[in-house]
């Protein structure tokens, strides 16, 4: 294994896009402001200059149109990376993603496949208020035909896109804008990652924190704080939200006998509901305590910082909840 390098989450994402463009001329990136603007979040900055307008395509505001065009281009043998600026706008492209990308293979009896990768900026925490702070990962995780990935670490920021581009099926990639400037370490030769399995990000024996996305670093931080107080919690990063890989978290629960699921999305009908019910079905007799969930408060996210902070689980909330669970 090569030396570790330090880079931001943004740099990791960008280097993967760049590598993909260099490696395969069928790959192109399309999305609002990916080119001349440099990417709404500067992820694709400079790529237009390097690869030209045929590979880095600015598109008009027309989410349904250009996402569908990406799906069509994939049908016809290209390898499009479609960027939907943020998940909030993905509702406008839902019909294309769910009714077309997710169904075409099945509906045609396997004649066609849709190798498109759709990236979206996600997450809350930048005071963007109700219409710009949605966490709609649960919707995508509901729909068969899609592969749904959540980029919770620098390793995955570097590797998930590269792996996604090898899938013959449509992949949804959630990237978290609040993490873009965060620095982290990955091996210098880091590349593709396994996109079928969840991953234990920290071993522990007292309780399993199961999470994804921005929850990963939050849970790791909470675990460190808890360790100082003698509590040894395991952190499971789900990573693959569809098809949800359950063995990893079931084994974790079989070891720790206690689980708390942490998620920014609203609680009802969420990823954590699914994880909790899988544990109910498949690890019930392992449990020392009922599984608990710490999720987003069910409110359209308000603008002011103090209310926004109160809307999603913070590190301290995780710590307190774990303590309550471990020392009832």
């Amino acid at each position, binding site marked *: 294994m090569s030396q570790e390098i330090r880079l931001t989450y943004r740099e990791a994402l960008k280097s993967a896009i760049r590598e993909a463009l260099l490696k395969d001329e069928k790959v*192109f990136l399309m999305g609002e402001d990916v080119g001349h603007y440099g990417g709404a979040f500067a992820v694709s900055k400079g790529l237009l200059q390097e690869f030209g307008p*045929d590979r880095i395509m600015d*598109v*008009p505001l*027309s989410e*349904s*149109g*250009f*996402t*569908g*065009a*990406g*799906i*069509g*281009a*994939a*049908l*016809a*043998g*290209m390898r*499009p990376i479609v960027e939907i600026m943020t998940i909030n706008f993905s509702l406008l492209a839902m*019909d*294309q993603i769910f*009714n*077309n990308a997710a169904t*075409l*293979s*099945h*509906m*045609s*009896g*396997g*004649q*066609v*496949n849709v*190798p498109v990768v759709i990236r979206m900026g996600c997450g809350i925490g930048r005071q963007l208020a109700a219409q710009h702070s949605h966490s709609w990962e649960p919707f995508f995780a509901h729909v*068969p*035909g899609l*592969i749904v990935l959540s980029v919770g670490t620098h390793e995955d920021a570097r590797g998930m896109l590269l792996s996604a581009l*090898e*899938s*013959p*099926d449509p992949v949804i990639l959630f990237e978290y804008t609040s993490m873009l400037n965060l620095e982290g370490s990955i091996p210098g030769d880091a590349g593709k990652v396994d996109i079928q399995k969840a991953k234990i990000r920290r071993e522990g024996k007292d309780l399993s924190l199961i999470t994804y996305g921005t929850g990963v670093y939050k849970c790791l931080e909470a675990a460190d704080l808890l360790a100082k107080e003698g509590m040894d919690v395991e952190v499971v990063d789900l990573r693959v939200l569809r098809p949800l890989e359950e063995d990893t978290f079931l084994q974790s629960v079989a070891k720790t006998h206690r689980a708390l699921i942490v998620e920014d999305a609203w609680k009802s009908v969420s990823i954590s509901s699914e994880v909790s019910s899988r544990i109910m079905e498949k690890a019930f007799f392992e449990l020392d305590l009922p599984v608990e969930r710490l999720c987003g408060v069910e409110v359209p996210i308000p603008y002011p910082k103090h209310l926004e902070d109160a809307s999603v689980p913070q590190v301290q909330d995780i710590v307190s909840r774990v303590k309550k669970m471990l020392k009832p």
Partner: protein
Amino acid sequence: MRLNKSNPAPSLTKAEGLRLLHQMTLIRRFEEKSAEVYTETKIRGFLHLCVGEEAVAVGVSQALQEEDYVLSTYREHGHALARGVEPKSIMAEMYGRLEGCSRGRGGSMHLFDSSKNFFGGNAIVGGHLPLSVGMALASKKQGKKNVTCCFFGEGAAAEGEFHESLNLAALWQIPVLFLCENNLYAMGTALKFTHSEQHLEKKGPAYGIETDVANGMDLLDVMTKVQKAVAYIRETGKPYFLVCYTYRFRAHSMFDAELYREKSEVEEWKKKDPIPQFKAFLLKEKLITEKVIEAMEAEAERQVQEAIDFAENGSWEKVEELDRFVYSEKAAI
């Protein structure tokens, strides 16, 4: 078929005339038979017939080549047949049999045949327009010279996807033919309740897209206009919008009581039926004889019966295979 320069109508050979009449007749008979077996509950779900609109399907297909892509709606039997998808495999599909073109999983609304570059059979109104834009974009990127032909109804033109797709196609200058079959109704909603500007051909110029109109009840007019459109697309690589005025003689689907239009209106349109019209033209021009017509009709009849027999004898996908094709069985690429 050659385009006669001084006269815009194409001049036909006898063989061509017969082939075209045969195609329209086959579609008509195929659909009438489908309706029949539908009432016997052999076909289920939605069944949308294009009876009356055959000249569009057949006329458009003449200008297309093998490597061109075709996308259509749920009212696509005619387009599929004209494209050369086997009647047998379409009928088997509607029967839900494994031998159907989509393995029986799609049914009437989702005919797919990638060997014919026929990409559905799409049942969300307007939902395939963005797909067609993407396919044409791929052709451009790949340096292919093929055209993507996207059929849709005038009702679909009210959806936001129409607007976004035409804009994208024009911005990107890609070779797509937007083929609007304006049959005056979207289910039971008449054109005047669907579009504030009922002359849909006025919409193309608002995107800077070359636009024309054809009489969809007249095979020769459709052929002429499509020929022109496709020639333009192949030459310039740019999109084209063609509106064919037509009419469906039958109900929207098998569930439609047709409360929204007068019987007399339907009767008026039936007088413009493209099949007898074209037949008369061929007879007048001495390009065909009654005897040849008779033989051709018998052949169409035979093909339809063959399709039915094939479908009847088809097999069922095993229930254990239910969840195949949710994810592609193609190797990772």
